[in-house]
């Protein structure tokens, strides 16, 4: 079976980017007639090694493109991925290696807020694109100060604002308790939530409980939240702590309105380990399809993804949301490169990345589209809320466009 998975995207892209393949070939370092060199930095070792599969998924997808389509516009993709062990100092070293020694055209989807913060200034000074960074911090969409850096996933703050709006509308007198990871990720969400609640933040939030990634359990924090009389719990955690929280809340016989971040909403990766019976009515949002959610079992996009997985990553655990993430990042990249045509300068890559119009990825939720412009560096800024039933998420309400892009 040889299908062009990106047909809708390609059609759209062609329609919008008038004539992508201009006659004249233009290259910067890293691109030739036969090859495009793309760099990447991932935490294959160290505390965040769980996310290393993103790099592997991107790599696998590019292998597929090279094998099945002969690359993009006749150029094979050479994907060079390095390990930074989630250490910013190492990320700087690896970024410089990619740019100065391997001479890549750009760096794609480097992971982690600290690592990307560390290399941002360097990349912009060198004028090398730092594309589609793998972090949802809000600061990545700042074209005025950092024209060479672009985010990809919905900003954490956008998602948090969606929850804030939901609470204000449905539980105006909520007693909100927040459990958050004490790092850039947690604090960004916290800010988004407070901004979204506006004046009412002070009166509605009754307890904020941070935890460290190094904490073995979050039991103590959950007990404090319950003790503070919280009736609306917002859980801003990574998957492991998300599962722990769901389980502990159930063990305590506590039934608050429970909102959990998209990061920890995977059915296979979080809810199943925590016990599906404990997850009834939990709220979250999504922008990508959850491969472990039975809702999508007959979905064409998912079937393509499964076919890809079976062929190129047969040993991977399909419940891992990072695989869908990496796959979608790679598809976005392919789209941008197709748009760029034969003009493979760094400037044009950046320009094309900033000219995505209503691109519907096959693993994105229906209606959740990629959009960028010269002033909008948040490719994904749409999400939809969902509530857990007995064994799968049920999407509800409209596709919401986050407020952050327009607010800044």
């Amino acid at each position, binding site marked *: 079976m040889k299908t062009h998975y990106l047909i809708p995207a390609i059609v759209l892209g062609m329609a919008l980017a008038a004539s992508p393949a201009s006659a004249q070939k233009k290259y910067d370092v890293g691109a030739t007639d036969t090859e495009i060199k793309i760099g990447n930095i991932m935490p294959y*070792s160290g505390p965040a090694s769980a996310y290393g599969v993103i790099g592997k998924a991107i790599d696998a997808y590019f292998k597929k493109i090279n094998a099945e389509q002969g690359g993009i516009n006749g150029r094979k993709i050479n994907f060079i991925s390095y390990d930074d062990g*989630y250490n910013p100092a190492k990320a700087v070293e690896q970024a410089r290696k990619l740019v100065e020694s391997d001479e890549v055209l750009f760096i794609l989807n480097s992971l982690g807020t600290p690592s990307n913060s560390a290399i941002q200034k360097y990349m912009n000074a060198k004028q090398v694109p730092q594309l589609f960074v793998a972090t949802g911090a809000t600061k990545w969409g700042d074209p005025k100060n950092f024209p060479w850096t672009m985010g990809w996933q919905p900003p954490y703050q956008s998602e948090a604002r969606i929850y804030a709006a939901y609470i204000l509308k449905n539980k105006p007198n909520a007693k909100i308790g927040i459990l958050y990871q004490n790092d850039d990720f947690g604090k960004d969400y916290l800010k988004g939530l407070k901004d979204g609640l506006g004046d009412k933040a002070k009166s509605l939030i009754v307890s904020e409980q941070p935890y460290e990634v190094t904490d073995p359990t979050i039991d103590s924090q959950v007990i404090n939240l319950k003790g503070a009389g919280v009736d609306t719990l917002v859980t801003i955690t990574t998957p492991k702590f998300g599962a722990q929280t769901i389980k502990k809340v159930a063990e305590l016989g506590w039934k608050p309105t429970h909102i959990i971040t998209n990061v920890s909403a995977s059915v296979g990766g979080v809810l199943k380990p925590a016990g599906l019976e404990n997850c009834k009515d939990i709220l979250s949002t999504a922008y990508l399809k959850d491969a472990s959610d039975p809702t999508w079992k007959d979905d064409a996009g998912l079937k393509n993804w499964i076919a890809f997985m079976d062929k190129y990553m047969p040993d991977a655990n399909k419940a891992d949301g990072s695989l869908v993430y990496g796959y979608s990042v790679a598809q976005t990249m392919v789209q941008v490169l197709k748009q760029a045509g034969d003009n493979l300068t760094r400037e044009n890559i950046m320009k094309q990345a900033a000219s995505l119009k209503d691109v519907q990825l096959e693993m994105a939720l229906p209606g959740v589209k990629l959009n960028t412009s010269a002033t909008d560096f948040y490719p994904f800024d749409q999400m939809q809320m969902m509530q857990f039933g007995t064994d799968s998420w049920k999407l509800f309400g409209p596709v919401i466009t986050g407020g952050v892009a327009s607010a800044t």
Partner: protein
Amino acid sequence: MNTAAPVSKRRAYEAPAYWRWLGFLIVAAIALPLPFLLKNFFIFQLTLAMVYAIAILGLNLLTGFNGQFSLGHSAFFALGAYTAAILMDQYDVSYYWTLPVAGIVCFVAGFLFGLPALRLEGVYLALATFALAISMPQILKLSPLEHWTGGVQGIVLIKPNAPFGLPLNPDQWLYFFVFAVAALLFFCAYNLVSSRTGRAIKAIRDNPVAARTMGVNLSLYKSLTFGVSALYTGIAGALGGIAVQFVAPDSFTFGLSIALFVGLVVGGVGSIGGALFGAWFVLFVPNIAEQVSKGLAGAVYGVMLVLLIYLMPFGLAGLVRMAAMRFARAKR
């Protein structure tokens, strides 16, 4: 583990003084032209290697020469880096002035930490320093300090340009700058170790009871060594922050302490020159490991470490010393 006397009690083979000078000249002859031959990226890597070498040397002064075990040197590295970063970022202090300040701050911190640590030995000291390493990133993230530390986001720094209109790019300049600082610090370490004070420090390692009866003030010397060790590591931290142009809590986790410790062991406990090889290992072996296998990068690293320890249980310095001893014997 019993780390009261962690190093072998065998008599070390002492190379004659002129060998050391010769060694230094060879190193300098190789190191000085390098920045004109290599790409900027490699210059940057070598700069980082020198930074780690200084930090490992600091750890070696404490563990190798004084017999005090520390898993907490990432904390002093962080303290030095943040001192430099905050001075540069908030008070516009020139980068070169941040080094002495970072050194002094870390010396004081190390000395003060050394005081209660006096009561602890072996595993207990290991735990106390371990606790320090674990706590440091959390303290750096602390909300009340966010104004200075930048909290979880860290501080971005500007790379210094070469002064006096020297025809060097920032990477080359920083390389020479770090080389000069490293040369000075290594020189001081050599002199310290072979001085009267140095003998007292080593006597404490080898036989504390005898040292005391010889009139060595144990508490003072141990705390001072802790301070000097922290000073070295703190200066390394400041240089590291300047070179990387970014400091954040995640750069200074317990993993850094482990890396420094591994560098210490493979370089050679109680050897000053060994720190250079240790730094090389810390910086490059993870890169080699990930080239072998991405999924098993950690395992490959571990296996390489195992093999290296089999090959030279006393570190590279031990191996060199043994070879030198054989050589000297053969000559006789």
